[in-house]
């Protein structure tokens, strides 16, 4: 009897470990490549991307994964994607990747301290962070890209401010931090620029980026309060925001990747953060021999690393949106291009929440 009990327990435990292994730890997905250049010679470089959460957020993480795919297809490299199930697995995954001997280890949205310490511990290993790392100084073998999203968010704010009927707009933000507020303040400034008497509601989700139910209820609350366009900056929780827009027949703005297609006709546009490009660039720099650790590389709208889904030719809203809203698109696009030109020419400054003391930020945050 006791033996049987032990056997059952063993099966359960082994089974659960098995599935854990399948779902999370080094489940290296070899993307694209093989079919294309199976015959190609030994890849010169190898790299690995550690994702902060599993693939499939249809947003930030998937964008970075596309960068890996692109690198596999266009560069003589072989890159793997190592998925993790959240913060607790980041360090183990990074150490695992270092031990595997990859030429470059990319860590997406890894805790800055952890990343820097690890880079110091392995000075021979090249590291790159395709997204922001908030550090004063980087170790000599770590590069950090920063994609400035405040300007692109500002453009989204212009769109929302131009197209709103109720003059109330919403932002559902994953968490209250300077990095996340780049989205919020940029958007708010854009709204107020074209619609000074508009009101912007901001709700934070307490860094709960994988709770679409909460995202849905939060967005519903904003729609009840009169908002007619809500900008979501909340990862997978944001999918609930997009769903809410479709449920109540109002509108949302997507983030990071082109999300216009997720709820066709309800998502006006998406703010694009080209993490795929920073991912690709960091791999390319190693291949070209231009990789130089210890530096922050800032990219933004002017480099084409941030913008709106319209820039990529998304017409989902034009095709499926209601006629009265579609009719306003031309105006919105004109305003966007007007300000884009001004910003690129340096004639207009958008608040960057990382520098809250600038006059443009004081004006927005002070609201």
């Amino acid at each position, binding site marked *: 009897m006791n033996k049987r009990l032990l056997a059952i327990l063993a099966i359960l435990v082994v089974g659960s470990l098995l599935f854990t292994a399948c779902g999370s730890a080094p489940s290296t997905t070899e993307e694209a490549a093989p079919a294309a250049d199976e015959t190609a010679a030994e890849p010169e470089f190898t790299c690995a991307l550690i994702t902060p959460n599993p693939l499939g957020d249809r947003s930030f993480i998937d964008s970075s994964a596309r960068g890996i795919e692109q690198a596999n297809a266009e560069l003589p490299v072989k890159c793997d994607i190592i998925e993790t199930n959240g913060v607790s697995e980041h360090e183990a995954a990074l150490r695992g990747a270092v031990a595997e001997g990859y030429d470059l280890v990319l860590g997406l949205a890894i805790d800055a301290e952890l990343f820097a310490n690890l880079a110091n511990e392995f000075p021979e290993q090249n590291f790159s962070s395709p997204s922001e790392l908030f550090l004063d100084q980087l170790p000599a073998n770590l590069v950090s890209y920063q994609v400035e999203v405040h300007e692109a968010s500002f453009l989204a704010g212009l769109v929302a401010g131009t197209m709103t009927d109720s003059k109330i707009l919403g932002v559902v933000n994953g968490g209250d931090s300077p990095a996340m507020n780049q989205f919020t303040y940029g958007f708010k400034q854009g709204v107020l620029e074209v619609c000074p008497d508009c009101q912007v509601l901001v709700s934070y989700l307490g860094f*709960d980026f994988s709770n679409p139910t909460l995202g849905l209820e939060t967005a519903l609350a904003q729609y009840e309060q009169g908002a007619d366009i809500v900008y979501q900056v909340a990862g*997978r929780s944001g999918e609930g925001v997009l769903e809410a827009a479709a449920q109540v027949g109002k509108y949302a703005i997507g983030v990071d990747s082109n999300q216009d297609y997720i709820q066709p006709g309800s998502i006006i546009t998406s703010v694009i953060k080209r993490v795929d490009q920073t991912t690709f660039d960091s791999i390319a720099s190693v291949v070209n021999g231009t990789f130089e650790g210890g530096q922050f590389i800032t990219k933004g709208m002017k480099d084409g690393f941030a913008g709106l889904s319209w820039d990529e030719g998304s017409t989902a809203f034009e095709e499926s949106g209601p006629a009265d809203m579609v009719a306003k698109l031309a105006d919105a696009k004109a305003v966007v291009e007007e300000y884009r030109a001004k910003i690129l020419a340096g004639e207009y400054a958008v608040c960057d929440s990382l520098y809250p003391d600038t006059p443009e930020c004081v004006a927005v945050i002070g609201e």
Partner: protein
Amino acid sequence: MTGFFSVFTVELLNSGIRLATPVILAALGGALCNKAGVLNLALESMMLMGAFVGIVSAYFVGNSYIGLLIAMASGGLLGLVFAFLYHKYDVDLVILAIAFNLIIQELTVYVMRVMFGNVGSWSDPSINRIPDIEIPLIKDIPVLGNILSGYNIIVYFSWAVTIVMYLVLYKMKFGRHIRAVGENREAAETVGINAVRIQTMALIISGVLSALGGAFLSIGHLKLFTRNMSNGRGWTAVAAALFGANHPIGTALASLFFGLTEAFAVRIQNVTDLPPNLVELLPNFATLIVLIFIALREKLRENNARRRFRAELRAEEQQKAAS
């Protein structure tokens, strides 16, 4: 900004009720198991299973109501397996629950990826959300109509289950048997009650209810599945059953309390100057307070019992001394 009291609206209640529904269902299942003397900490896995099976079968069958039924069946099956392992092999209930929670969390992701490709969340435009229903007559009552009407069938079902479970547990013979098994299994068996059968049924029912709560998340509220979609709601349900002292109505109200706190935290951000990070802690804080409250209540009960016991002892001694 508008005044603080502007958040107390009918919509707050609507939102709280929607957020509470999956917790109510799972918590009722948990309370029933507790009443039958079998601890079910696997509510989380049963809920997650229901969320996944619900949306997948709604996709393949093309009817979300049938998706609900299949989800409930899957939860019931899980409850049956749980009962089988417990009764047949005497596996420790806590270990069993941990194993279930781990397996289901990864199994759903594994199957999702095998079936639908490399995704972390999955949805399909062909899936219909369970429609909201306005109840005739009730919906025309001012204010109350807006509070009570306009949800989907799962919400109404959760209310019905609350009442039915109360009636069964406290007004019917079968309910008396359940409570008897929970309070003293040996004594119940002596009078011929089949304790194994009763506990098995409690586990199956809790699986069915939790899975329905899960399906509410994936096809009743949203229209998508993401990994670990239950997101701790099964554990909230465990707490709610405790808070409600395993009484169906108390448990439902406790779940509603948790739902309302969450809805409140969502809304209050726009009307106060409190830092958002503090406001977001509100639901967690409420849970903590509730747990402290439960602990105090237990303590008080123990103290009372001890005091009564001492008083009896003293009375006995006095009697002895007198004689």
